[in-house]
């Protein structure tokens, strides 16, 4: 069976400890979390987790079934194959002596990213986009010397009228 990345959109009760339960389940059963982003939804009692997990069909089925057993998990949707919008935000601190700044700014423009901080010899660049774009901008900054990278992990939303109404 082939290993693939899957995006799970998980609705959970917004309570202390829920994140620990979810993360603990992954650790305990030996599943790998690629990324996990969490925040509350339009209903303050409910949070949404976007979890990217890598595994074959067996692992993904098990992850889904085991997550379903957590009492505070309300709903799980594997949206990998469904029409959805996905975004990740990245902050990159890159070495930027005056001589290369122009070149960096050009790349920033091409990616429709932004410079959000200018230091003596550094720039902080902010970009959002799908995972492909984020990976691309990160690697195009590499030649200049990346000092630090922070990524939020993917968040995703199904296209169409309302979650779960497909």
């Amino acid at each position: 069976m082939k290993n693939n990345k899957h995006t799970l959109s998980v609705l959970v009760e917004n309570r202390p400890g829920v994140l620990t339960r979810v993360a603990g389940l992954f650790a305990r059963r030996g599943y790998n979390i690629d990324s996990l982003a969490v925040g509350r939804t339009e209903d303050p009692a409910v949070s949404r987790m976007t979890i990217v997990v890598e595994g074959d069909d067996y692992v993904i089925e098990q992850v889904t079934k085991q997550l379903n057993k957590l009492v505070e998990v309300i709903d799980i949707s594997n949206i990998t194959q469904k029409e959805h919008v996905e975004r990740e935000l990245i902050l990159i601190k890159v070495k930027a002596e005056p001589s290369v700044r122009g070149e960096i700014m050009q790349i920033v423009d091409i990616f429709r990213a932004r410079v959000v901080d200018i230091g003596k010899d550094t720039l902080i660049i902010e970009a959002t986009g799908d995972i492909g774009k984020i990976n691309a901008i990160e690697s195009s900054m590499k030649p200049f010397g990346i000092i630090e990278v922070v990524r939020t992990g993917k968040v995703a939303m199904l296209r169409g009228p309302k979650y779960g109404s497909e």
Partner: protein
Amino acid sequence: MSAKSERVSEVMQLGSIKEKIQESRNAVSGAELVVRALEDLGVDVVFGFPGGAVLPLYDALYHSRKIKHILTRHEQGAAHAADGYARSSGKVGVCIATSGPGATNLVTGIANAYMDSVPIVAITGQVAVNAIGRDSFQEADITGITMPITKHNFLIKDVKEIVPTLKKAFYIASTGRPGPVLIDLPKDITVKEAVYDPQVEVDIPGYRLPVFSGNGAISRVAEAVMQAERPVIYAGGGVLTSGGERELLAFAEKLNIPVTTTLMGKSCFPENHPLSLGMLGMHGTMYANYAVSQCDLLISIGVRFADRVTGDVSTFAEKARIVHIDIDPAEIGKNVAVDFPVIGDAKTVLAHLLELTQEKRNAQWLKTIEEWKTQYPLEYEDNGKLKPQYVVEQISELTGGRAFVTTEVGQHQMWAAQLYKTALPRTFISSGGLGTMGFGLPAAIGVQVANPDAVVIDIAGDGSLLMNIQELATAVQFELPINIALINNRYLGMVRQWQEIFHGGRYSQTDLSCQPDFVKLAESFGVEALRVERKEEVRPALKKAIESKKPVLIDFWVEREENVFPMVPPGGSIKKMLRGLGR
């Protein structure tokens, strides 16, 4: 200013004076709320051990007319007793411990209940809400600690949450695939006051009971069953949990399908029945394991394909199409690929299957199985000395398989599983998934509390018994006439057996020649006790113990180096089964 007048002045500032005064008159303490909610949930007995953080709760229990408290002598004993109570009665077992060490002492008992899907509710004291997280005296993060070993747990931070939380806990523990639920209760919450509302509605948005697969799936199973020439039923604890033993018997008899059970499923099918194959797996019968390896349809009901059952998964039931009926969708396909998955409780599914199938004889297949039974019976060498197997056989014959048997963990447990022939459901109470030494004695206490008139026997090992021996005091105090049949080989016998077979006979740390005199030890607790060293003494000693209606310990000094056979080496295929007796 007293708490009450302080409340009143607060209320006056707020306005709606009359209403609030009325409410404060009706308000009771959080501890009282716990007790009333437990009473209304039908709890008539709890097992526990007090301490600082649960003082208010114990004060409220002191006044309860409906709830009896059984004081175990260790919190682990309370958890196992609640477990034995639940397994033997089908009701939720309740245990209580104080914060910190009291709570951590419950951990093994909770993990044990989790592995065997037993509905218990554990209530632990906690330090006051504003002291949490400060490493306060007797603080332990018990909700964090028990997260992976509970079906769910709660930390209550508002007195108004007490009643709804208890209701949720009982509901979660006892429905679907059952399991332990823990409620952590800070001390200050138990002295705050609120009005008791027994009607309070609870909503658990993320907890939905598994959806029954439906008739299509069951019809396909029925078809497969009708087509099968060599079907076998592999039945587990789920049959007992669902109360489906009658349906199982009817189904097996109607279609003449032989039945093998797991350790957890033992007692879901009468073992003196011609269709019974006994237990399968590592120490299962040869004929059960042969039947599974040769069958063309394996009907698995309420089981989880544990490694102790399957051995090498790739050769398990390799000729068969596999039906898996379970209430927990996560079990289906977890360890073994399944041809016919059915989600639902065993009782309901079996009832449907009964309707959708016609009578069948399977004569050829049953004849083959009969031949295996005669050719490969459970056997041991009878050399005139006192054999552990003989003791279990005598217990089985004397009680007709109608007593409750609990076990500890080790060789004696496997002999009990092989040779005690259960006749009634829920009567074999053993730690299957976790394999907890020290389970049997406190579990027997819980069983006896739930079944005051029944004969209850803990078939014990000497290593295990010492782990919770303090519970003899509980049995004496509460006049629980449990019997302990101690299979005393002065070894950690099961580990010694593995050392003999897999580690060149190097008995590293398994010789228990230095043990207490169990007779004197029991007597010091006020338990009647006697030692038996000869075969002919076994039956009379057992008879006397059972008839005495008091707690009795019989210290059977058995042959020390007896081994449990048959044995499938761990992870091995059934073809590598060791028969014993030099064969």
